């Protein structure tokens, strides 16, 4: 039975990852293409030049093909919190549900109402109303990103909540702490600006393809002019917010940072590994034995993490075995504290079943944060609640190679995009881009690379969160629903086949629409 549940957990993780990966194949283009289309339509309304109307409508057509499947996979994601992660839904629903509801009320309706005007309103509503509808669709899409990222950020860094023994769940105590936590704000900025970059690269890449074939020269050149500057500014903002993400992770998720850097032994003035090849897991026990080869930049990791070249950055071994000098508790101690809380819950249940109200009141007092005793219990014991469900400290270490390489793919590609967009903007401005065929080819190839980088970013964020569903409070191993693993396997395969079929259809339609070009607009 226990093994079957673990299998359910693994399949549920696989299914959620599958849905999220497919969802994120479509959403970033929607997030970024929306504002780009709105900018182009603004140029149409301001100049009255019909060229901009046709250009807007062309990119809008591609937006529509991509939009539908993002909506479909998003619906699945929302409900999978309930179907596959019912314990999680109960334990944090009081906090997590609110952003999802706000997302629906504020963002989805805005998006779904005005997208109809955006597509069917040409000639039926005034130009200004149509332009407003286009902007509101773009804003609605990005607003929805805000709320779902607030929810995701809370899983990485739970704040603004207290534990209620009576309901056995975490309850919101500060909405502003949840909605405006530094992790949420930065995650939103990083995700949205990276999506803007991806969409800009998509527009630049498709336009470059036209230029390579000597087609649609004016539309391609003007689209590149808008998208390259939009993308360049977005890519710079992505780099800035990415740097902040690292610094925030250093304090809120040190294990994620250590795994991303394959840093086993913490050190002062820690270097940043630019590139390296990791040794097999069994051989990676210390910094010296972690790599076949590596290229480091001295002290950069300390500087990026704590804005101090001499700061101590804890490694995986420090976080597992503890480091008294740095005030880091051993994982075994955290697990013991977590188990003590679980035992307390068990005693509370025994007392409840026996009708022993005195014991129940005594235990309830432990969870009352308004008393010194309760405050100490919550801080010293309950803060490690989730550790009590772990079997061994090693479970705390996420997949190091996946994180290490994904992070480098993301950062490396991001740096390349800044350089590429800068060059494209510069040559396009000087009307010499058409002659730089190597650059145009690079633009086309950067479209898939942008998707790869975007997916790698989410791998860093979510694989780095493991083993937690909610950091320190609930590991994924007890967050899932109790459903037969065979049923999750079936839905996993069903979704895999369906999403892949729809992806093939989407790509086929998209490529055909690009080949057709704007001639029908």
């Amino acid at each position, binding site marked *: 039975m226990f093994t079957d549940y673990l299998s359910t957990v693994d399949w549920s993780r696989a299914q959620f990852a599958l849905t999220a990966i497919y969802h994120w194949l479509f959403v970033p283009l929607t997030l970024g293409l929306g504002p780009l289309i709105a900018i182009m339509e603004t140029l149409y309304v301001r100049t009255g030049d019909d060229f901009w109307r046709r250009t807007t409508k062309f990119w809008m057509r591609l937006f529509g*093909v991509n939009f539908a499947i993002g909506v479909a996979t998003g619906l699945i994601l929302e409900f999978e919190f*309930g179907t596959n992660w019912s*314990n999680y839904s109960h334990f944090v629903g009081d906090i997590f549900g609110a952003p*999802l*509801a706000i997302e*629906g009320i504020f963002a989805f309706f805005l998006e779904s109402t005005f997208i*109809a005007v955006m597509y069917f309103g040409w*000639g039926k509503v005034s130009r200004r109303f149509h332009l407003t509808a286009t902007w509101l669709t773009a804003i609605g899409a990005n607003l929805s990103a805000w709320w779902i990222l607030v929810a995701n950020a809370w899983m990485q860094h739970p704040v603004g909540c207290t534990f209620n023994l009576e309901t056995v769940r975490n309850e919101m105590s500060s909405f502003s702490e949840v909605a405006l936590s530094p992790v949420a704000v930065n995650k939103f900025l990083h995700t949205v600006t990276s999506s803007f970059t991806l969409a800009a690269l998509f527009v630049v890449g498709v336009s470059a393809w036209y230029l390579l074939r000597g087609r649609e020269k004016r539309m391609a050149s003007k689209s590149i002019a808008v998208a390259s500057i939009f993308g360049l500014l977005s890519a710079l903002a992505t780099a800035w917010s990415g740097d902040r993400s690292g610094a925030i992770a250093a304090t809120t998720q040190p294990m994620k940072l250590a795994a991303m850097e394959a840093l086993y032994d913490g050190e002062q003035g820690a270097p940043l590994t630019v590139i390296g090849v990791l040794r097999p897991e069994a051989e990676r026990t210390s910094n010296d034995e972690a790599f076949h080869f590596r290229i480091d930049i001295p002290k950069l990791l300390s500087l990026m993490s704590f804005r101090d070249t001499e700061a101590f950055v804890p490694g995986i071994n420090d976080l597992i075995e503890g480091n008294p000098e740095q005030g880091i508790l051993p994982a075994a101690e955290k697990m013991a504290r977590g188990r003590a809380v679980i035992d307390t819950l068990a005693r509370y249940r025994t007392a409840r079943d026996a009708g022993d109200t005195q014991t129940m009141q005594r235990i309830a007092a432990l969870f009352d944060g308004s008393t010194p005793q309760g405050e100490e219990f919550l801080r010293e014991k309950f803060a490690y609640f989730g550790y009590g469900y772990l079997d061994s400290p090693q479970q705390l270490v996420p997949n190091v190679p996946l994180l290490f390489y994904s992070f480098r793919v993301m950062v490396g590609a991001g740096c390349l995009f800044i350089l590429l967009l800068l060059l494209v903007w510069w040559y396009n401005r000087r009307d010499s881009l058409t002659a730089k065929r190597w650059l145009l080819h690079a633009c086309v190839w950067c479209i898939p690379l942008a998707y790869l980088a975007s997916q790698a970013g989410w791998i860093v964020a979510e694989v780095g969160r493991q083993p937690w569903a909610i950091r320190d409070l609930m590991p994924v191993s007890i967050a899932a629903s109790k459903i037969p693993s065979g049923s999750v396997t079936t839905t996993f395969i069903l979704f895999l086949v369906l999403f892949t079929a729809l992806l093939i*259809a989407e790509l086929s339609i998209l490529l055909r629409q690009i080949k057709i070009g704007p001639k029908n607009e």
Partner: protein
Amino acid sequence: MDTLSLLQHYWWFLISLLGALLVFLLFVQGGQALLYRLGYTEEERNLIVNSLGRKWELTFTTLVTFGGAFFASFPLFYSTSFGGAVYVWMAILLCFVLQAVAYEYRRKPSNVFGERTYDIFLMINGLAGPLLLGMAVGTLFTGAPFTVDRLNLANEGGAAVISQWATPWHGLDAVANPRNWALGLSVALLAMILACQFLAHDIDDEAIRSRIRTCLRRLAGGFVAVFVIWLLTLLMADGWTADPATGVISVEPHKYLHNLLAMPVVAILLAVGVIAVLCSIGMAWVGRRRAIWFGGSGTVLTVLALLLLAGWNHTAYYPSTVDMQASLTIANSSSSLFTLRTMFWVSLFIPVVVAYIWYAWRSLSRRPITREELRDGGHQY
């Protein structure tokens, strides 16, 4: 009534309203189910799809918001029903995924699977979506076999799961209850009737309108018969009631009838709603184009009243058939006072949402769709 209880009732009202709006907007699904019944030629089917297609996003968004609002206000239902009746919910999700892509892809060149496949997707969603949603909502009155013990978290592994299903059927249990079938069929037939009314209003084409009238007359009898049977069995049925002081749950014969008598405003809503739906059927029968406004408002009032019957007056809105005390009420399954209050402030924005939806709808639907409009080009599904 204290603040927490007031907010629990307020949020159940909003959930019920969202559910009621969702059932009204299922006319999109109803129209999809009738696609080949009302559209004989490719051009006629395109007219129908383009009329419905401008509204599909609203239905979809209402479903998503319904789920999100339920999660935010009554998370224990979310974890119990979705995590338990997983087969039913997954089937619902799958058929809505098919809908989302079908509109955009069906007539695009190189769509891999062909227009006919996407039309079949639309029809699957149109038939199965309302039927399954209706059956799932039916379990709010008939119950489901689940247990809930929050302190299961003191266990490990699968035993730590708070809400557990007592049978291996995980939602398919609902199929065994004829009352769930009756509600599912009622919702599916109502969706098709509303679709007939909407399309008669939104499409200016005599051939389609003539078929709509014939189709509606056939559907109306079936809908009225099934719905009346379901309503009568509901009023005769036992319900689970919670003692407001202790929270202890017990069986109360004719609970929903008692709820109607105890809440005369809800009874009036139900009566007005049912009369409006019946009037709309009569209006559409004789070819009146404005029938959809009566049908729509009647549907919203009827469903709102029925969902209020399910949750208000200390009723267990999700009765457990295996452990009565595990049954969910709005009092024992809601979010905390803080969250409900925070969400209350958010909900004040809803009238603004309704206003702009109305404005955008009116802007696009001022004139009915014609064959000429489709032939003129522009964006089409």
